[in-house]
């Protein structure tokens, strides 16, 4: 390397929910490993300042975030109209007519500005890509503003995958100039979606670093399974499904329940819910019980599980989801079978993760689960059988 070669800088933006002790350790390793080639600098928005102490060995820099908003601004309204520029759906009707006044907030505008120092030698910005079924508004605003900041400063922005990106929603992944994926299915999915070739997949030893799974996961999972089997009186023979329910997909989950309802008497449903998924006067649990009332009557039993206790999914024979999400990500890492039903995407199987897109294939997959359930047995049951059989 030439002596006077100036080391280029890469910025890595970290926010509150994007760091674990493992990720922190790995980033330090990466920083050290690259130090003679790349100045890997970590930046943290002031909205996530509580993590600065946790990641101090990365020498992070904090930056200010400022918000401005305008309500009912005619200028804002006109600007939005101009952006949408008379673009129409395939058979007529402009996007402006459909979305501007309600979903796009009419004349309401919010601008978040990041005061990141640009030293001029920055060659790239690394950010985590948010996903629709598990994200925080503050972090998303920073994500969006970082994209704008990078473009304004002509800095390539590269997004990396944490939660699975192989879902129907691909807007967030379309915003960076490049995407780093953690799984083949995300890589293949995005290959068909993105209008650029800046798409990479990490080797397993790096991909596994960005895991949502805590160290206590397995033992907590076992404890929870024993607990719920008792409280819900679930017989050994009943197949258990873990549904990572989300209020944004009420219709889709209802559809799935209707399809598998004929097998319902052999099934227990574990609905995962979020405390914050309250809409109007209704909690997520209430919505499930009101909207799916007719469907739930056709199942043997069901229970609710806080999504912040994901180890409880170990009790399930399979996840049954309508989209990849936080919980399916965990399931994938723990080799928990995951069945994703999405008629809008092609069928796919990767290890324990299977995506089906027809009613028939969903039913068939369910029947397989029920068949396989019969072969499973806990230590306790085995011990009991041993005890019952007695000594030879």
């Amino acid at each position: 390397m030439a002596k006077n070669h100036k080391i280029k800088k890469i910025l890595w933006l970290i926010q509150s929910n994007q760091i674990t002790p493992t990720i922190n350790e790995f980033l330090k390793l990466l920083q050290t490993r690259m130090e003679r080639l790349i100045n890997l600098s970590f930046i943290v928005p002031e909205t996530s300042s509580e993590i600065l102490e946790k990641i101090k060995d990365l020498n992070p820099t904090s930056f200010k975030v400022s918000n401005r908003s305008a309500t009912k601004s005619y200028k804002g309204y006109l600007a939005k109209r101009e952006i949408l520029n008379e673009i129409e759906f395939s058979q007529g009707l402009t996007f402006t007519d459909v979305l501007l006044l309600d979903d796009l907030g009419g004349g309401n505008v919010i601008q978040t500005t990041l005061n990141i120092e640009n030293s001029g030698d920055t060659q790239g910005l690394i950010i985590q890509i948010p996903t629709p079924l598990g994200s925080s508004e503050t972090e998303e605003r920073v994500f969006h503003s970082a994209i704008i900041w990078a473009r304004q400063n002509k800095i390539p922005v590269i997004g990396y995958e944490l939660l699975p990106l192989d879902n129907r929603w691909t807007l967030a992944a379309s915003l960076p100039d490049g995407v780093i994926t953690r799984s083949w299915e995300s890589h293949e999915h995005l290959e068909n979606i993105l209008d650029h070739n800046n798409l990479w997949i990490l080797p397993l030893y790096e991909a596994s670093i960005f895991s949502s799974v805590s160290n206590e996961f397995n033992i907590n999972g076992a404890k929870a399974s024993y607990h719920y089997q008792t409280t819900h009186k679930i017989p050994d023979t009943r197949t258990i499904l873990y549904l990572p329910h989300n209020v944004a997909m009420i219709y889709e989950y209802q559809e799935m329940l209707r399809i598998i309802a004929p097998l319902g008497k052999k099934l227990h449903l574990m609905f995962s819910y979020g405390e914050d998924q309250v809409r109007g006067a209704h909690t997520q649990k209430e919505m499930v019980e009101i909207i799916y009332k007719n469907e739930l009557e056709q199942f043997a039993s069901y229970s609710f599980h806080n999504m912040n206790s994901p180890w409880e999914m170990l009790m399930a024979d399979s996840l049954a989801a309508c989209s990849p999400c936080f919980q399916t990500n965990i399931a994938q890492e723990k080799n928990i079978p995951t069945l994703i039903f999405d008629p809008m995407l092609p069928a796919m199987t990767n290890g324990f993760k299977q995506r089906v897109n027809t009613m028939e294939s969903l039913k068939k997959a369910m029947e397989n689960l029920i068949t396989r359930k019969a072969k499973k047995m806990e230590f306790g049951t085995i011990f009991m059988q041993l005890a019952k059989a007695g000594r030879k």
Partner: protein
Amino acid sequence: MTDFWKNKKIIAYIALQHHTRFITPVMENLESQGATIKYIVGQAERSQEITAIELGLTYSHIFDFITDKNHKEIQKNYNLLKNTFAGSLKNDFFLGILPVTVTDKTLFSTATEYVGFKNLLKKEKPDLCFALHELNRWGKMFAFWAKKSNVPFITFQEGLTYGLDFGYSGHAQYSTLNLVWGKRIKNKLVSFEAPESKIIPVGNTHLAKEIAHQTKKKIRKTKRKKYKISNSFVTLLILSARLPVPDLFKPIFKAVSENTDQKIFVKFHPACKKLQIDTWIHAVISQFKNNNFFIHSQESTYDLISVADVVVLGQKSTTGLETLAFGKPLVKLDFAYTPNSAHSFVDQGVALKMRTEEFIEHLLEKTDFSSLMDQEKITQYLENELTETPTAIKKVCAIFEKTIQANTRPISSLKGTHQNPDKKWSIIVQVPENPDVFLSQLEALACNSENQGDYEIILLEPEKKSKGIVRILDSLEGDVKKITIQEGINSPAMMNKAGEIAKGEILIFLEKNLAPLKDWLYYLNNAFLKYGNDKIFGARISDKTGKIANAGMVVDHNNAPVSAYLHLNIEFPGGLKERSFQMVDYFIAMKNNLFFRTGGFTKDAGDYAFLDICLKALKVTNDPTAIIYLPKLKMIFLDNIPRKSNMDDSIYFYGKWNSCLWDSEKKLHMDDQVSPKDIDHVKITSAMQSAISS
């Protein structure tokens, strides 16, 4: 009662529970008359299914109408939306009002719903569709597809419509008609961009029903008994979705808490979030535990108004109007009052503005708050806000019926005697009210109609005429026929009668107050030679100030007819092009044979008779260029142009031609290479010229 509604199917879109109160009274009425009602809900972060379930309504979801075959189309639309948004989000913040992933979910749902609504209309084939409004994506897409499918689509009004004008853009865009509560709302919508002819004040559909329900079920008595407050003085405090600081109300809670004969109900807005409410309540009850009742969705607001002795607004709220309609006294606390704000209850003299201490004083003195109200102002206010509310449901149902009738009415040829022509032209003129105008009109006809073949004039004269008009009519000589328009018979009917007795090969109909200019028959003659017999010809018509009144009719952004380049100078280049249009107004010339084939003028079309006959001619001839605008054929209005203001005429016109009226103004401007900025510039210049000349 007729059996009109038997076997008729209505589809109503419902979203939030407090919106359905406007829709369900109408649906219940129609159902009781035999109609089949179907409710539809959409995909939203805040479940719309809950609304239907809690109201006990059987519903379908828009996604129910999606099949595997639609996935490609959905994906195509989603990609188009996504790429549009991604292109913008990368560079600026305007489309970033929602977090990126929420926007993304919205885009996917929108792409799906777009196809879902199309399929819904195709599968269900309703006779009429209905939604609260078309300002959100569900209402807009539903209205669009209903129009495409030629199903009448009626909308209402969501609330008091206090927002900024541009927030209501497209309020009556794809709707066949928009039925609003009162005149004030109509004026507000029209003042920005809404089409006046499509907006009809009908009153408030749920209030009359609610008031009757309250009386019939003795709600005040039973609810007061339920809460064990029969002998208490009850205050109802109404809060909106964004909660104010609880401290503002603590003196009131304190006073009520310390007096056992006082009770206070706090009603939270349905859109208010549960966590916010819990925090708010906790802040109050941690200090004042007695005599409070906190209500979110567990009681109807109307029941609470009935229970109350005084209603207090701590913020802006539509319930102020409802309180007044219920005959209850209304108080606005001074901190919630903004001086000179539009539609202020206080400024209009229909609410009492009080400081908190003042209110508490009256409360403890057990003042009858009604005695402090200005009843005359309240009556006047309610008339303007809630036109004919007691009969609103009946009126809406009647409009629905008329709209369906118009929509399904076939075009039939005119029955009557077809005279053998012995003249070239029959000029049918409606006699104006003003004698000077009439004289000028006759003079223009006499001077400008020479040397183009023989003609007769048929005058349609009103039964009641001024002496001046009578004198002129008596003095007329030559080939003039007169038909008296009897009271109750409208001008389209009389024009048909004139058409039947006309001896001309070509029939010419003129709107009232219209005079032809030089060589008009020459240009008309040439047009028949050039284009043939199966055409209707229109003229370049100016108003009396020299501005365009008709240069061919286009359909504007709100799918309402308007003259091309309306109100621009009559010599504006865009108005000087001879070309075909979908319609022309105020003047038509056509062969008598075509007139009879189209069925002549439609009596129910009223003010829209000229436009209606053009649209019928397009159907009958199956020729999209059957209507030709002739800029060289010039006419001028000698007096004011008749306004299209009759409600029944609008119902017929928009009902009948629902699927034919699509924005064509934009295309005209593109063809003429005229930008909106150019139009604005010309309009300003034209307005300045008018100002200078006046």
